[in-house]
């Protein structure tokens, strides 16, 4: 049974939502920026079989795949938070 729409419930819902937002922003920042700051070091590593230098690969594909997966994961996690607090849509 979902909890009632009280002020406490509302605040708990929002603090969980905020935490989820910050977690995803952190991952976004890491794969959008931090990892590419080390492109020269990563380029020294070759991906076996495919032959990509790792630094190039992360900017061309790796980070993009992370972003797509992240978005579906986020949709699921946020929906769970909404459900737990009784704020999800029917």
């Amino acid at each position, binding site marked *: 049974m979902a909890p009632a729409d009280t002020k406490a419930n*509302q605040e708990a*819902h*929002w603090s969980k*939502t*905020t935490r*989820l*937002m910050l977690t*995803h*922003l952190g991952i*976004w920042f890491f*794969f*959008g*920026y931090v990892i*590419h*700051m080390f*492109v*020269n070091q990563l*380029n020294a590593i070759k*991906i076996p079989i*495919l*032959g*990509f*230098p790792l*630094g*190039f*690969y992360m*900017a*061309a*594909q790796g*980070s*993009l*795949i992370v*972003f*797509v997966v*992240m*978005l*579906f994961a*986020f*949709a699921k996690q*946020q*929906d769970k938070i*909404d459900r737990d607090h*009784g*704020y*999800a*849509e*029917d």
Partner: protein
Amino acid sequence: MATQSQASAAFYKQLGRMYGTYTGAFVAFIVFLAILEYIGVPNRVIGYLFVFFTLAVYAIIGVMTRTAEVSEYYVAGRRVPAFYNGMATGADWMSAASFVGMAGSLFLFGYDGLAWVLGWTGGFVLVSILVGPYLRKFGAYTVPDFMSFRFGGNFARFLAVVVLVACSFTYVTAQIFGTGIIASRFLGMQFEVAVFVGLVGILLCAMLGGMRAVTWTQIAQYIVLIIAYLVPIVILSTRKYGFPIPELTYGTAIAEITAREAQLVKDGLATLCTAANCGPTTLKPHIQPFLNYTPLNFFGIIFCMMVGTASLPHILMRYFTTPSVREARQSVGWSLFFIFLLYFSAPAYAAFSKLEVYTNIIGRPITEIRPWMFTWGELGLIQVCGKNAASLQAVIDACKSIAGHPGVIRFQDFVINTDVIVLSTPEIAGLPYVVSGLVAAGGLAAALSTADGLLLAIANALSHDVYYKMIQPMKQQSRNLTVWIIGAVIVFIMYWFMTGTGPFGIAWRWWGIGGLAVIAAATYPFLQNANDVQRRLVIARVLLLLVAIASAATASTRPSDILAMVGWAFSLAMAGNFPALVLGIWWKRTTTAGAIAGMIAGFGLCLFYLVTTRYYPQMGVDYFGMTAMLNPTTGLPIVDITKGVKPLAVQQVGWFNLNNINCGLLGMPLGFLVMIVVSLVTPAPSKEMQALVDEIRKPRGRTVLEEKTS
């Protein structure tokens, strides 16, 4: 409730059947054209059939989905399923520049070009976690709707409209220009006529059905553009490496390019870009970072494009159309997935093309030159030894006139327009013309779908926000006066600023003014008797038509300035919209005064930096402490500012060596700062407003803003 979800499940199934059939029919159509080509139908006919049949299909969808309901016109009735809205957003997002230009930038810039790939994908993360779903819950028709509601009325609405028009108008002009270029290159149409055809195509899709029609045509356009983008490169990869997934096989191509680059330098056919000497004639290794952009500008582009994505109204408004907040979030995931399919293939195009150029053109004796080049050389898009490579003889003559030329093509001899990379791949791979026609149809779909979305965003802001929310509620007398003044201003603008010749040799200004007169005469008696809904929809359509004509007229003058400004849209949207959107949702304490001051400060600073660096560099140096831009590799100033600077297309001066395309990096932080400081010194928003912000944060329940729809 059960009946509703059953109905939506049936709707979903029906959509699957419709678009499945559509995709099958499109593939059959390609096969049919391939057969026509095989039995000897000329290339030009096949090109025309491709373009006209796809345009006709979009137009039919546009006409079939016409509507007479306000909520259908503005937000497609809010029943577009997440998956399909994702596809529509993909088409809305991917412009002519993504389809044709992106691979070219990657060819030219190597690793540094990936800043665009990252920047134009990662922003969707911000859309989903910070902005989009909350705006969906709010229940707006346009982004200015939200600004006005949250920040106390029409002044905030007006600012948001200014930001929206500033970032969308140059962008839509570039799309219409793109349709003209593609149609004139592939079909040999006159450029001005091609622009007009593009305009008609866009209007047929958008005018009768608004957002509803644009949604269903964008899905059809996505299917065409993604097939067109992937087919040539999949075939090329299969032929070259025996494996049909180019995104995996181009790793080998990159290794070969790197080896070939070393060989060319060793053979004295190319000079390597070094800290001492680096320019357009030196070779920049494909995988080496920061040769074209400094790290600051590289990460700046990524950041501005990402935050810009989350601030551009024509993207945000796509998430107003989903049935629920939950589906809005899923839909962002699908959007990025569909965009990803194209963006992670673009580097493969660049790598395969570069390998072809480095092995079969550069380092080859002139007489062994590949004939596919001459098609593009004739159009002036490929130059060898400083002359258009129109034929073998032209190339031989051009190179002979260079003293001491070795008779082998050197790196510095070869210049290619980046648009050629995608367009020429079918020919490089030796594929039949039907594939080239397919690529042209795909490029057109990309340009048209983005133009539809942008045009709708502008026209909706004018009809919903400016007319319905600001002018309509006025008293009769002042309303009439306002309409007259605006009409006079429009005629004045059309007369003075519309230059260039439209189709049939009639100047655009007369097309515009004549059209306006016809529209006014036709709609005036109707508007007198119309009810509220009819009047809103007629005005929405008239404004759409006017904006479309204005942007087509601008595009037909081939305005190099405007085309260079497209990248600015992201920074302008970011500086003007992002702080107000994010703080409006995430910080209840944001006040009206704070938001308005922040929007003006952020947008103003960004605009100031753009205009000063591009048009008044001398003033920037004299009064605002700007210094010369530095070459990213050598670190030397590109101009001597003590000798005076003239405005040029290449940015010469700035602050902190920051590219002006990254002006959002200055404007957005200032916007946040001003918004927070002013909010803290002004009284907190009312209890009611704070309660409404709480409402936006909960997906359950009715939308906050309830529009009168009948």
